[in-house]
C-alpha cells in the first residue's frame, strides 16, 4: 500500500509539473500525428502491391501499428525518462540522493519522472486500434479484451525489465547511451509482425529486444491469432525478466560505490 502511495505521489507531481507547459502538448500532438502518418503511409505502400503480408491483411496490420504506437507512448511516458535519469544520475552523482531515501530504491528510480504529454501516443494508438477492430467487423468480447490487456501488460513489464537492466549496467559502464539508441531502432522492427522476419532475427526480436511479446502478441490477441503457447511464454518471460532485473538491480547497487566515494 505504501509503495502504491509513494508511486502515485511522484506521478502526480510530474503530471502537475508537465501541465505548466501547455504548448508542449501541441508540439507533441503534431509529432505523434506525423509518426502515425509515417506508419500508415508505409502500410499503404505495401498494400499497393499485395493483398496480405504473411497472412496479415491491411486492417490487421493497422492493429499492429496501433499497438506499436500505444506501447511506444507508454515507454516514452513512463519508462524511458526514468531510465535516462538513472544513467544521468550515475554519471553526475545525483543518483546518491535517491539512494539515501528510505523507500525501495528500484521503486523510486522507476517513478521519478513521468512525461504526461507523451500519452498522446497512447490515445492515438488506442484510436487506431478501435478503428481497425471496427473495420475488421469482428466484435471484441470481454474475454478477448481481457486477454489483450493481459498480454499488453506482460509486454510492458518485459520492456520495463529490459530497460532497467540496461540502465543498471551503467553502474559498470557509464557510457551506454548508444545501447539505448540501438534498442530504439530495433524496436522499430515492431511495426511489422515478427512472423515475417527470418528465424534468427525472430529469435532476437523475441528474446533480446522483446518486440514479439510487446507488439506482435497483443496484436495477435486482438486478431484472434494468439496461441496458448505464446500466452504461456509471455507470462513466463514477464515473470522471469521482472525477477531477473530486480536481482540485477540489487547486485548493481551493491557494486556501486557512489559518486563521492
Amino acid at each position, binding site marked *: 500500500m505504501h509503495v502504491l502511495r509513494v508511486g502515485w505521489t511522484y506521478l502526480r507531481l510530474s503530471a502537475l509539473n508537465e501541465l505548466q507547459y501547455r504548448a508542449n502538448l501541441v508540439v507533441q500532438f503534431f509529432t505523434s500525428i506525423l509518426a502515425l502518418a509515417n506508419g500508415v503511409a508505409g502500410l499503404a505502400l505495401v498494400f499497393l502491391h499485395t493483398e496480405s503480408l504473411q497472412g496479415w491483411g491491411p486492417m490487421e496490420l493497422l492493429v499492429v501499428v496501433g499497438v506499436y504506437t500505444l506501447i511506444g507512448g507508454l515507454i516514452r511516458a513512463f519508462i524511458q525518462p526514468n531510465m535516462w535519469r538513472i544513467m544521468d544520475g550515475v554519471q553526475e552523482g545525483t543518483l546518491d540522493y535517491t539512494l539515501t531515501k528510505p523507500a525501495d530504491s528500484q521503486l523510486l528510480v522507476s517513478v521519478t519522472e513521468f512525461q504526461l504529454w507523451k500519452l498522446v501516443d497512447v490515445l492515438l494508438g488506442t484510436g487506431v486500434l478501435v478503428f481497425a477492430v471496427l473495420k475488421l467487423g469482428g466484435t471484441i468480447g470481454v474475454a478477448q479484451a481481457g486477454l489483450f490487456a493481459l498480454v499488453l501488460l506482460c509486454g510492458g513489464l518485459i520492456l520495463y525489465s529490459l530497460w532497467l537492466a540496461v540502465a543498471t549496467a551503467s553502474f559498470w559502464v557509464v557510457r551506454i547511451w548508444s545501447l539505448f539508441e540501438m534498442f530504439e531502432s*530495433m524496436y*522499430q522492427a515492431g511495426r*511489422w509482425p515478427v512472423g515475417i522476419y527470418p528465424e534468427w*532475427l525472430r529469435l532476437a526480436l523475441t528474446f533480446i529486444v522483446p518486440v514479439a511479446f510487446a507488439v506482435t502478441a497483443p496484436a495477435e490477441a486482438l486478431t484472434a491469432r494468439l496461441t496458448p503457447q505464446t500466452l504461456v511464454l509471455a507470462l513466463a518471460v514477464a515473470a522471469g525478466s521482472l525477477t531477473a532485473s530486480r536481482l540485477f538491480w540489487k547486485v548493481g547497487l551493491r557494486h556501486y560505490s557512489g559518486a563521492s566515494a
Partner: protein
Amino acid sequence: MRRTLRILLAEYKIAVLATFQYRVQMGLELLGLLFEGVVYLVVWTTIARARGGEVSGYTVGEFAAYFIAWTFVRNITTGWSLSWMEERIRRGEFNALLTRPIHPYFTDMGRMLGHKTTSGITLIPTMLLMALAFPPEVTVVPWALVAVVPALALAFLLRYTALYVTALAGFWTTRIGPVFELWFLTEFFLSGRVAPLAVLPIWAQQLASALPFRWMFSFPLELLLGRLSPLQAGQGFLMQAVWLAVAALLMRAIWRSAVRQYGAVGG
C-alpha cells in the same frame, strides 16, 4: 579557400581520432542503421516472394542488393542530427562558433567526414554479413560504378546543406523539432529510404524527381545497381547540381539574417 580546407582537414582528423576512442558506441550506432535497412529488406522481399519473385521490376535478390548498398549510401549521406543543432543553438554554443573567422558549416563538415570515415570502415564487415544473410543479385555496369563516386559526393553535399538550412530555422524558434519531422517524413518516402522509388505510385515518383529528395539518396543507389542509362545519369547530375546551387543560395541568404536574429544565450 586554402585556409578553409586546412581547417576542414584538421577538424576531420580530430573527429577520426575522437570517434576511434568510442568504438563500442560506434558499433552500436551502426547496428541500429543496419537494422533499419534489414527491416525494409525483409518487408519487400516478403512481398516479392508472395508475388512470384518480383515487385515493380525488383527481384528478391535485387531488393537485397538495394538495401545492402542502402546502408553504405545512408552512412555517406547522414547529416548532423537536427536535435543536436537545436541543442547547440539553445545552449548558446553558437556564440563561440560565430566569433571564429570560419563558417561553422565548414568546420562541422570536417567533423562529419571524420565520423563517416570511421563508421565506413566498420560498415564493410557488417555489409558482408548482410550479404551472407540475404544473397544479393548484382548487375555490374562499369561506367556507372565510376559515375557513382561524384553522385555520392553531390548527394552528401546536397543533403548536408539542405539539413543545415533547415536547422537554421532554430535561430528564430528554438523548437525546430516539428519542422524537421515534417521534412523527414517526406524524405522518408520520396528519397528511396523505405523502399526503392520504383515501388511508389507514379505521381509520387514524379514528385520525388522534381524535388531534391531523389537526388540526395536514391540517385547514387540507382546508379550503383546499374538501373540508369547514361542519359538518365546525366540528367541526374544536372538535377543534383541545380538543387545544390539552390540550397547553397538559400543558405547564404538565410545565414545573414539568422545570425542577426540570433539572441545569444547569456549575451
